[in-house]
């Protein structure tokens, strides 16, 4: 499995964002992050209707080993959250870029985002 998906953009804090479709963007955490965290056992997400701010904490991802904040990669209003990720956090490890997506957000403005190539380079992974 490739740990970085080439058609996404990333925050330095390991969130990925998919802005390819028209409408709200989809956000999750990268496989680089879930591999480092270990088995995810608890996810807390913003609520639908919340306004999140790029670079600020908007939730938590917790494994048996450690916990890390979920940082908003963009500013905007949350339009949908993935209840499956809350009910079955293991999907963040199994399919971080697919079934393990976290929430959708109506993007008002972007924070600093990295291309897949830049993100790979920053994390010492050959693209």
């Amino acid at each position, binding site marked *: 499995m490739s740990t970085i998906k080439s058609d996404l953009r990333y925050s330095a804090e390991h969130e990925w964002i998919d802005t390819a479709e028209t409408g709200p963007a989809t956000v999750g955490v990268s496989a680089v992050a879930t591999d480092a965290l*270990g*088995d995810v*056992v*608890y996810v807390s997400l913003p609520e639908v209707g919340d306004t999140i701010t790029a670079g600020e904490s908007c939730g938590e991802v917790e494994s*048996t*080993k450690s916990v890390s904040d979920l940082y908003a990669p963009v500013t905007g209003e949350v339009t949908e959250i993935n209840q499956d990720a809350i009910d079955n956090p293991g999907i963040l490890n199994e399919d971080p870029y697919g079934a393990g997506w976290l929430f959708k957000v109506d993007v008002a403005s972007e924070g600093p985002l990295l291309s897949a190539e830049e993100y790979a380079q920053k994390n010492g992974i050959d693209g």
Partner: protein
Amino acid sequence: MTKQTALYAEHELLGASFTDFGGWQMPLKYRSELEEHHTVRRAAGLFDLSHMGEVWVTGPQAAEFLNYALVGNLAAIAVGKAKYSLICTEDGGVIDDLIVYRRADDRYLVVPNASNADTVAAALQERAVNFDVAVEDESENTALIAVQGPAAEAILLDIAAESSRQLITELKYYAAVEVELVGMQVLLARTGYTGEDGFELFIGNTGAVQLWKAVAAAGAQHQIAPCGLASRDSLRLEAGMPLYGNELGLDTNPFEAGLGGVVSLKKPDNFVGRSVLEPLKEATLERKLVGLQGGGRRSARAGYNVVVDGAVVGTVTSGLPSPTLGYPVAMAYVNTALAEPGTEVQVDLRGKPEPFTVVATPFYRRKK
């Protein structure tokens, strides 16, 4: 430069991710640490613990010496039995917790933690000057493999020589015996750090790979899996066992850690730390180590503050979401007045207090 155990190449073949622990490159996990945890509770796990120390104490005054160097009464252990003990400073601080095996009237094996092995060996050497004993640090030459879980005994029986089978089935908890496994002499101890039945196998480095492979092969039909330090930590915490560096350290004394019973004040011998520890037994402790059970889903972590009405009343030493129990568990030092089971406290989880209840440990106890 971090050290590698004799089993390092095996771990690489198994796809382990590694972590630096006590100066050693050790497997953190092979696949999923949660799955490894559950496998130990349900079947059996195979651990490389070769980073632990092995210090042999031999000589006519071995028993007297250990009674001076350690806080427990090691002279009272029968040959073949083991005892959990502590080595303390003159000030009563804990240098390490360790297991002491009596192998003969005049011969003991002391097993310290990896991160303290050098310190413990040096302290024992230093304390031995006035005793007729030899202290030999064999840590670098000795491998230690643990087989932990309900299937552990069945797995070892599969690779034991006929003459060793009864020795294994009759081996009591905290006892050790020389057995023959796959044609090799192994010192087999019924000890562990997981809360399950299980064994720890001491063998020279040269036999380690063969023994590891034999246990793995025999264990396959019992669903054994190699397990790393991540699951070892979650297993020991559920079992309420302290980890040096978290619950124990130079700034903790045995009584506040709930290990007063390990300190033998009945033994006639003077021992290092006695003058400080003896009065502490009757003194009112400022703080005590307690178990905490989380009321929510968020877990307390080492270093977080325990609070009551906004005031800091303690510090978390270990904490995680318990894989077996499904709720957060933690250990913490709290003000003695708040140490009674049932006491409601909060833990400041990164700015947001969450409710926790003081509970008795272990959090998890296996069914007999």
